[in-house]
């Protein structure tokens, strides 16, 4: 059986977006830290999955929240892809991309990630305690760490820039070696 032509898939996705039929659009991106699955809804990037996360599960998570009409398109997400490609080439900050934190249900975790997205730029690092403090509760550094560990939109919401006050680079949802790679890329290490 011949596989579906890419042009057909792109045409379906483009029409779906144009007609407002798509609850979310996703794209696969090759990067120095492995393949990323980037899912974007009407409000912004809603989920970034690392390559070891099963795609079906990542997409099902988004479907449960935004709806099941999920399509793939490199072209519809060209701007997002360009921003991420530039970032991995050493330029710019994907933190500038709009983000949709609707997969984060807990209010404080939501606030922590929003604060992180809005206030910690490329090359900066912040401690879990300082982040908790910026989000309004200086003692909630454990909750801040949990928020980062479960961040549904890594890289765009830069949890790799959050480190323990006690030293070291700390944990990371995508593994500490990816955290180190990102911080080195940004010149923060």
């Amino acid at each position: 059986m011949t596989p579906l032509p890419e042009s057909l898939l792109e045409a379906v996705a483009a029409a779906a977006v144009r007609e407002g039929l798509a609850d979310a659009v996703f794209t696969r991106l090759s990067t120095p830290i492995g393949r990323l699955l980037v899912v974007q809804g009407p409000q912004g990037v809603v989920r970034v999955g690392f390559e070891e996360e099963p795609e079906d599960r990542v997409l099902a998570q988004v479907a449960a929240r935004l709806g099941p009409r999920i399509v793939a398109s490199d072209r519809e997400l060209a701007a997002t892809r360009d921003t991420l490609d530039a970032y991995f080439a050493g330029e710019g900050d994907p933190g500038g991309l709009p983000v949709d934190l609707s997969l984060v249900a807990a209010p404080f975790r939501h606030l922590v990630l929003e604060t992180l997205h809005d206030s910690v730029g490329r090359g900066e690092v912040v401690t879990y305690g300082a982040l908790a403090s910026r989000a309004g509760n200086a003692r909630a550094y454990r909750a801040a760490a949990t928020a980062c560990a479960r961040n549904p939109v890594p890289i765009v919401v830069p949890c790799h820039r959050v480190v323990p006050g006690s030293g070291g680079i700390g944990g990371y949802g995508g593994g500490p070696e990816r955290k180190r790679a990102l911080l080195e890329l940004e010149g923060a290490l």
Partner: protein
Amino acid sequence: MPRSRDVTAVALPPFWSLVEAHGDELLAHARRVAGDQHAEDVLQDALLRALRAYPRLHHADHLRAWLYRVTTTAAIDAHRARRREVPVDEVPAVVAEDTYDEGAFEALIAALPDGAQAALRLRFVDDLDYEGIAGRLGISTVAARQRVSTAVRTLRERHAA
């Protein structure tokens, strides 16, 4: 064996997971029913139709069969549209092989009770076997067979009258 079914909490898989799982065979199906020349346009139209209808589905079963049906319908509509545009055109495979006409079929069964209509659609439009019909309707295989045969007998009697 009867199966209970929760129609209120439907967890539909992400649409593109279906496209990536079944796209190749759907294109092959589109080639069979619409011919090579029109297959890609037909499938593109079918996938958009399916996407429009997707959130309104009441269950997440038999999605592959559903996509086949949507593709067949898109092929028939495309053929009709081409016939209206161009007086002479080649007859696509599906129309040459049988005279399936959704409008006529629906008109034929419209007077039957809903349960009988559903059973007939599953049997003759979706081409399911009795086990498949039973699963879809949540009834036993024996009951599915009875329902179809009773409905067919009713139609015969009405048309004979």
